[in-house]
């Protein structure tokens, strides 16, 4: 799968040059290539435990001929469709908490709108360089980050108590009921303000940042953090996506093949999950992020256009 992805990306990187030289690349090749790449991304994203959006924007922005404006609009809608699809089951199972998500999503929504407006106002080169640096930072976080399955919260903070941010769920994996509460809510709201800004500006899904804040900073159990992260993402990305829709930065020829590709790929990824070593795939994801982040940075700096 990884070799196929690299081959397609190599072809895509050469594609714009071929077109510029008068090569006869038909328009319909691009949505098909996009479908193939997003299908592979869907598989890798599930196996690597990341959202498709964080891989989509740097890879498609770096190796396809589409302008970064349209790629970011499609990236947000891609992340949104995945989050919306997963949230109902997670909520019913208690693995996502609406009470926990609401205040954080509200802050993130406001800043994601600001981020989208700023992103659409920045010069393209500056935006691409900033995206490259952000993706390289995400790769570093993924390579070094830690997680805690069930952190202890000795005492919840006053704000989380007032907002009813506590609960319990049944974990079928252990057969136990897990009671949870959270701490450091004001600090988490500041963190989600920053995450929302990045999500709106770069069109990234933000699970890579949501989960550590919920898990390590607030002390929510890991499973609840993953589920609630998706719910927050569905609200935050909705806000930013509308800015791109209203600006005309949503091309159906990019959006629909990408959404279908990632969703079908994710289904295959779930089936492969049992037989694929997660640590190995995670290393591949980090490598892909390093390459695509480096490509975006070099593109932004005008070194590899």
């Amino acid at each position, binding site marked *: 799968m990884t070799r196929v992805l690299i081959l397609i990306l190599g072809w895509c990187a050469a594609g714009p040059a071929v077109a510029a030289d008068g090569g006869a690349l038909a328009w319909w090749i691009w949505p098909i290539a996009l479908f193939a790449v997003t299908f592979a991304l869907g598989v890798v994203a599930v196996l690597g435990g990341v959202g498709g959006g964080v891989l989509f924007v740097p890879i498609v922005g770096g190796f396809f001929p589409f302008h970064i404006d349209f790629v970011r609009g499609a990236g947000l809608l891609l992340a949104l469709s995945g989050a919306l699809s997963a949230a109902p089951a997670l909520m019913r199972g208690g693995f996502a908490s609406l009470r926990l998500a609401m205040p954080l999503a509200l802050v993130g929504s406001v800043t994601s709108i600001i981020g989208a407006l700023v992103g659409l106002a920045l010069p393209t080169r500056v935006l691409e360089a900033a995206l490259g640096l952000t993706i390289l930072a995400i790769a570093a976080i993924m390579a070094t980050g830690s997680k805690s399955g069930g952190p202890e919260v000795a005492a919840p903070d006053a704000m989380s108590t007032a907002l009813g941010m506590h609960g319990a*769920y049944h974990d079928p994996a252990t057969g136990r009921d897990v009671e949870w509460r959270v701490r450091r809510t004001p600090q988490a709201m500041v963190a989600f303000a920053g995450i929302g800004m990045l999500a709106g500006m770069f069109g990234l899904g933000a699970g890579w940042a949501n989960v550590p804040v919920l898990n390590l900073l607030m002390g929510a159990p890991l499973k609840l953090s993953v589920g609630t992260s998706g719910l927050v993402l569905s609200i935050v990305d909705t806000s930013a996506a509308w800015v791109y829709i209203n600006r005309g930065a949503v091309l159906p020829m990019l959006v629909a093949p990408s959404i279908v590709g990632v969703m079908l790929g994710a289904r295959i990824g779930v089936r492969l999950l049992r037989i694929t070593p997660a640590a190995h795939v995670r290393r591949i994801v980090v490598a892909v992020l390093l390459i695509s982040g480096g490509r975006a940075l070099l593109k932004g700096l005008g070194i590899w256009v």
Partner: protein
Amino acid sequence: MGLIVSPSAEQEVYARWLDWGTRIGLAAVVATFLAYALGVAEPLVPPERLPELWSLPVERYVALTGAPTGWGWLGLIGKGEPLCLLGIALMSSVTLVCYLRLVVALVRSGSRLSAGIAIAQVVVLLAATSSLLAGGH
């Protein structure tokens, strides 16, 4: 007294609305795209012109093609791309619809603080969906 591990009533309602809304939204995205890709709805921009246009910043693309901004696509709903935007807009409105239902559930249950947060979220989402917010390169 044992732990209550079942989700709250308002979470159940939100999940139910989200589930159905997402199904409808995704079906609309696929159906409208098929209508566009198969030529059932005439495209606003001929697909063979796309490779020379989709590498441009959105402002240039809009200026060269006359593609709609804001809610302008509603007036061109018979064309392929605006029809696709209907599907995309439906999917992107699911959260807003769920929050409107959530406000009702929270007000009825007397959760005034949470209802206030939900109302504030509805205001933010409405601001995002309005075409008042603009920016550009």
